[in-house]
């Protein structure tokens, strides 16, 4: 296996020798050549003309490898096919996520949004330096030269870019290179370009963390406490001795489980079955999910712990509802959910001859990998290398503030003599049962309408479990006790609705919790868009027209949200459903982007529902890769709808009841007959796309069902008597 680390040292020496032009940024954000302050670049050009985009974000399928490569290709005037890509090493000074602060990581649908100018600037600087080098050699005016498809030409001469790399590498980096005018874009916005990462995924050569096969490696699996907070009291590995390939079983020093080592994966799984553990549950969670549900509902009827409204007073809202002509009220429940990325979690630590280590990981938070290994293995940061590789999905799961699986592999490796690579493997059962769930939430909303069917008051109470409290992101997300992720998508809605008030009550987590594709929007959008539908019906108004009444203002958010709603309605033939079919609509802003969806459903003779079509309209600013945007909307809708239809994690005495796909049934190919996505043309800066398709997906289905069926206010839908074909 070729390691990025080998490539890295090549990069450094090649840059030093002038055989490579490498452009990155200094820790203060200024463009710089590699070899100086910016040893780690965003783009490199080698003397053979190869241009490589160095990706500061990992690729979990969301299309970052294509997107960041596109930005380099555009500014260097090359075809996307001509750009190579590789994942950046861990270095938060250079590769920090500008939306996260000094932290290298991917999440919150920020990859393109925060990298857009950085990668364009790096590509533009490389272009200008290559052209300047050619101009100097040819004694020409740089303004007379162009770089196109790897060739510099003008002033009667032409040459390949590789010929100018050595000279370009001696030039100063322009501090403000000229970016291409959007009217000249060739790659950005081209719907016909193909994904950069697809060939290896089609022919089976793509390497994920699960696929790391190093000479002499051990496989380690962990037997974990079934209940959060349980610790190992004692264990007996005698039964594992007869498993061929079993090496040893050791309790993790943090008490969280027993590490079982074997030569191969199957032996490790078998040995784990044979290891018996006595757990100490004295500090463990004992509540069931039914207990949590009761606590959440009780909180909704009580005075909210936090006032999450910036404008309206609760007393004013209550008075407005008191005086309303009509009041509608609903209570909603959202269960715990697992992420269940297709590739179960895992990572490998490889010891190198010089005492340093490499972690091979589909690293969503490389800074966490880096600091966790440094701390647990007691190695200086420069002795820890993070080799980011492809990740088989995440939906948030590979980004834990606690670095859960990186801590496991580091502890497991630390207990060995550190001579053999150690590969941590999670099974699907580990993935479904080991916590880090989307928290359970409950909402209660009362909406008052006047005699014209206008909303006069909106009393919205939310109870749930905070994701961010106690994490290192707390200072960014939590204000005055309010975890913004618990109310995002509701308390900050672009709808201009008078008399809105939001209250929030935190519930003590019964299990470990984590952001899950679209975070708070995964429940707030369902409530907002269900209530808008309920209120429209109570007002006797069309669901689209009713929403547009509250998007008639002149703020960009209202205008953009109205535009996607109108486009989706037009493309879906809103109001013109065929006989026997029902339509529902939902629209939501999340991660800076606006998505409207229209669902069209039918019912078979037994009343089972078939999702015939979802029509989506999206405004995510400038569309870098239109086809990737469509793919993310398709996937985001599937993820949202599949879970709304039939998924939940329930707890019995603090332990998950579901263990694998048969009881956490994924969306299947027959579940949605068609998805059609329309992109609003925009010159605004690009915003998120990995998550925004998900929030409207649950409520759009609920709203379609409610036209001729029940109003589903508790998920999953199959628990409420809804059947799907």
């Amino acid at each position, binding site marked *: 296996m070729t390691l990025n680390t080998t490539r890295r040292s090549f990069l450094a020496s090649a840059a030093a020798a002038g055989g490579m032009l490498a452009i990155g940024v200094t820790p203060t954000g200024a463009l710089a050549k590699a070899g100086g302050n910016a040893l780690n670049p965003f783009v490199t050009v080698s003397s053979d003309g190869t241009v490589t985009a160095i990706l500061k974000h990992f690729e*979990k*399928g*969301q*299309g970052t490898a294509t997107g960041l490569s596109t930005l380099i290709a555009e500014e260097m005037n090359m075809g996307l096919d001509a750009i190579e890509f590789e994942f950046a090493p861990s270095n938060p000074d250079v590769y920090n996520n500008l939306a996260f602060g000094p932290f290298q990581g991917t999440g919150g649908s920020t990859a393109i949004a925060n990298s857009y100018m950085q990668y364009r600037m790096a590509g533009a600087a490389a272009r200008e330096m290559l052209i300047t080098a050619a101009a100097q050699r040819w004694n020409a005016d740089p303004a007379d030269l162009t770089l196109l498809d790897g060739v510099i030409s003008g002033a009667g001469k032409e040459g390949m870019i590789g010929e100018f790399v050595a000279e370009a590498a001696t030039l100063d980096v322009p501090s403000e290179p000229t970016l291409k005018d959007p009217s000249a874009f060739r790659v950005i916005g081209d719907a016909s370009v*193909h*994904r950069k*990462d*697809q*060939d*290896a*995924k*089609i*022919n*089976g*050569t*793509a*390497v*994920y963390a*699960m*696929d790391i*096969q190093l000479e002499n490696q051990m*496989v380690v699996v962990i037997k974990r406490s079934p209940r959060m907070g349980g610790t190992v009291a004692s264990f007996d590995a005698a039964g594992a001795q007869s498993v*061929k390939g079993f090496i040893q079983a050791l309790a993790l020093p943090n008490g969280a489980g027993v590490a079982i080592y074997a030569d*191969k*994966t*199957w032996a490790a*799984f078998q040995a784990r079955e044979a290891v018996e553990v006595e757990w100490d549950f004295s500090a463990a969670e004992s509540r069931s999910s039914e207990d949590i549900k009761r606590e959440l509902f009780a909180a909704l009827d009580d005075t909210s712990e936090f006032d999450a409204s910036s404008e309206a007073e609760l007393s004013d809202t209550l008075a407005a509802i008191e005086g309303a002509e009509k009041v509608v009220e609903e209570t909603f429940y959202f269960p715990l959910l697992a992420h*269940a*990325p*297709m*590739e*179960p979690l895992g990572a490998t630590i490889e010891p190198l001859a010089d005492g340093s280590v490499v972690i091979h990981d589909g690293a969503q938070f490389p800074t966490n990998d880096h600091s966790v290994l440094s701390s647990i293995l007691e190695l200086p940061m420069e002795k820890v290398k993070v080799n980011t590789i*492809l*990740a*088989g*999905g*995440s*939906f948030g799961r590979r980004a834990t503030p606690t670095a859960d699986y990186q801590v496991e592999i580091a502890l497991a490796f630390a207990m060995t003599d550190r001579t053999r690579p150690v590969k941590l493997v999670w099974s*699907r*059962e580990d993935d479904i049962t080991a916590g880090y769930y989307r928290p359970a939430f409950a909402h209660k909303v009362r909406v008052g309408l006047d005699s014209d069917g206008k909303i006069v008051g909106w009393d919205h109470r939310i109870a749930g479990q905070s994701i961010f409290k106690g994490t290192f992101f707390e200072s960014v997300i939590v204000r005055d006790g309010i975890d913004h992720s618990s109310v995002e998508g509701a308390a900050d809605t672009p709808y201009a609705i008078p008399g809105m008030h939001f209250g929030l009550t935190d519930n003590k987590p019964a299990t470990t919790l984590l952001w899950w594709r679209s975070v708070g929007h995964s429940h707030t959008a369902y409530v907002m868009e269900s209530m808008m539908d309920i209120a429209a019906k109570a007002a006797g108004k069309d669901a689209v027209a009713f929403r547009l009444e509250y998007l008639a203002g002149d703020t960009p958010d209202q205008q953009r949200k109205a535009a996607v709603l109108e486009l989706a309605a037009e493309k879906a033939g809103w109001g013109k459903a065929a006989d026997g079919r029902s339509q529902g609509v939902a629209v939501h802003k999340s991660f800076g982007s606006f998505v409207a969806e229209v669902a069209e459903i039918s019912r078979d003779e037994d009343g089972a529902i078939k999702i015939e079509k979802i029509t989506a309209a999206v405004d995510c600013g400038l569309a870098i890769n239109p*086809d*990737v945007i469509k*793919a993310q909307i*398709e*996937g985001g*809708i*599937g*993820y949202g709808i*599949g879970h709304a239809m039939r998924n939940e994690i329930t707890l019995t005495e603090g332990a998950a009841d579901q263990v*694998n*796909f*048969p009881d956490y049934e*994924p*969306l*299947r*190919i*027959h*579940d*949605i007959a*068609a998805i059609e996505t329309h992109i609003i043309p925009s010159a605004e800066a690009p915003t998120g796309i990995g998550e925004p398709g998900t929030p409207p997906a649950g409520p759009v289905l609920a709203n379609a069902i409610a036209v001729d069926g029940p109003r589903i206010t508790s998920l999953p839908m199959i628990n409420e008597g809804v059947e799907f074909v």
Partner: protein
Amino acid sequence: MTIELKLNGTTHHVDAEPGTPLLWVIRDDLKMTGTKFGCGVAACGACTVHVDGEPVRSCQTYIEDVEGSEITTIEGLSSDAAKAVQTAWAELDVVQCGYCQSGQIMSAVGLLTENKSPSVAEIDDYMNGNACRCATYQRIRAAIQRASELMEA
């Protein structure tokens, strides 16, 4: 015990205990990692391989049961149907994370080998056991239809 395994046209001698799933022999003994581990209980299809031309879930196929059979993994695909499927997958940019796609492709090739022009209902029925958490399903459906066209051309 030593087992003789015919995989992608090559005969391998593997030392494995009876009851060992074919999946883990392919991945950990033969170090061919295109065949993926997704669930271990034949519920997701990521581990799909062909045994004597038929798609099977290798996580629930025991090694002693396939001795003497011809096994094909994603690395050994070469049929006309396989070429059409892989070409169509690239044309339509089907993959996202990609982890399930070896299994999807192995199933799609199985389908088109026995039915060169499947209907949408036949595609949905045949592919129902292959889960994709990225929900690339409609592109999978379209790519199978495209592959069918390519095979007829």
